């Protein structure tokens, strides 16, 4: 269980994280979501004690990370930036970390196999691809068989097979009762893996919710209507919002599909298609974080 309270980080005048508070519970995959520069990595680094908060604090199972007697068995972490000596082999990298806790050699071999690195374990990390580097980072995170797993952008640089592997791994870790916190700036990825979502923007909490809930509250659904008398239908639905996709195709917000259907039937408007559309999670995320995107593209 991870708990953050009033977590704040300032660098000079710049506030990177502001009064962030949340709880990450065991047994579920929690997505930590936000645009680039939202403060995700800084927050994770504060949880791990690598960065000191300007204010507030974070605890793992009730006490600060650094206060644990066997930190690697409580939390395993994959950080965003590569944290490996390129001249050391994957095996020796993991063994060096394992020695600090007296973790046996067999466990090192086990996590190497789990990450699919057995074949390259004795090779120097220098020659690893981005994806292999991520796999090594994940092997290191699992080294202590930790109750809490924190992964910062784990799918970065992974091929489709690797992405699928991460998804399955995250779900199985959560199913084993572990606390799993995964950061990403890709909503679509989180939609497939996360049960719970913590969304931040410009260092502030925007939402602490479930995936379904986020979709439901983000501006509601719309209905796609195809009719040869589209413009007449528009005049029959006062107060509704319309997006004209084609001369005969409308996307209607406001009234739901049954209401549009009833209105059309009552006035003899033929309908060729009447399709309720749920907003994609991506759209929900964009709507939520629109005002807090740090680097916004200007129109050309």
């Amino acid at each position: 269980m991870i708990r953050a309270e009033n977590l704040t980080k300032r660098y000079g005048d710049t506030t990177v994280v502001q009064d962030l508070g949340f709880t990450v519970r065991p047994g579920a995959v929690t997505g930590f979501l936000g645009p680039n520069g939202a403060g995700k990595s800084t927050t994770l680094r504060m949880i791990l004690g690598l960065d000191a908060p300007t204010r507030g604090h974070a605890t793992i199972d009730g006490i600060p990370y650094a206060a644990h007697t066997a930190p690697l068995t409580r939390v395993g972490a994959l950080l965003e930036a590569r944290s490996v000596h390129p001249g050391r082999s994957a095996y020796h990298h993991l063994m060096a970390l394992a020695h600090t806790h007296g973790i046996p050699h067999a466990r090192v071999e086990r996590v190497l196999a789990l990450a699919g690195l057995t074949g390259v374990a004795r090779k120097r990390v220098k020659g690893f691809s981005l994806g292999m580097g991520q796999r090594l980072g994940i092997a290191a995170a699992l080294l202590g068989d930790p109750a809490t797993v924190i992964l910062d952008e784990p799918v970065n640089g992974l091929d489709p097979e690797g992405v699928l592997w991460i998804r399955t791994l995250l779900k199985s870790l959560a199913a084993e009762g572990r606390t799993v916190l995964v950061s990403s700036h890709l909503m679509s990825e989180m939609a497939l893996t996360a049960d719970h979502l913590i969304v931040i923007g410009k260092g502030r909490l925007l939402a602490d919710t479930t995936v379904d809930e986020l979709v439901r509250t983000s501006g509601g659904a719309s209905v796609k209507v195809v009719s040869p008398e589209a413009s007449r239908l528009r005049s029959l639905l006062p107060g509704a919002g319309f997006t004209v996709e084609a001369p005969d195709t409308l996307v209607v917000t406001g009234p739901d599909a049954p209401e549009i259907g009833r209105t059309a039937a009552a006035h003899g408007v033929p309908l060729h298609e009447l399709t309720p559309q749920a907003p994609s999670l991506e759209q929900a995320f964009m709507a939520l974080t629109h005002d807090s995107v740090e680097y916004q593209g200007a129109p050309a």
Partner: protein
Amino acid sequence: MTTPALTHARVLRSEWHKLWTVRSTWTTVLTAAALLLGVGILMGATYTSDGGDSDVDTVVLSLYGSQLGGIALAVLGILVTAGEYATGMIRASLTAVPRRAPVLWAKAAVYTATVFAVSFLTALLTFLTAQVFLSDTDQAASLTDDGVLAAIAGNAAGVTLLGVLALGLGATLRSVPGAIGAFVGGVLIVPEILGMLPYEAMDTALRYFPTQAAGALGSATPLAGAAAPGAALLALFLWAAAALVVPAWLLRRRDV
């Protein structure tokens, strides 16, 4: 199987493992040993009794190469600490040992033991090899002669403590080129420049600067204008200790 948990001994074991699983350790250690031995053989082979070097201490003469070799070992010290910041390894190290300071102490301990052992054994070998050439000159000496063994050990201690100083600079500056620059400039060159100043008090103070103190430790006969070996060892020890206390204090406070 014992329960996994952090202990100081295990952190030490981890740093030992780290030290010997990168090539730079082998490169710097073997370079230092080769320089010490090579220069020693050169000094021995080219020595003549009437060449004007008769007043040079035998151990100092044989171990001239330790100044060059010492630089290679200082670079190793810097790589051990600042190198982890360059590669990002420090984030993994300090996540595994979040109390942080034990990592620095373990690095210093592992480095000290390794560098002293290598320096002492190579210096012994170099002295004995040089004596093969020097035995029929006025520089003939044996290990049992007064002060010889102490000077060989002193030379190794000097090289080691200068290296610890470099290791501390690396941990403080967190940059390999920065720390090498600071070591060469601040520790090796600045005292030479200060020595040119015409002040008596400066000369006395300089005796206790790291390189001068290390020099005094490595002579079997008392050097003119140098500190006594005991005082030199104490001074050098304090320099090295200060160079570790500063980054230990900073390590607690700085973000990684």
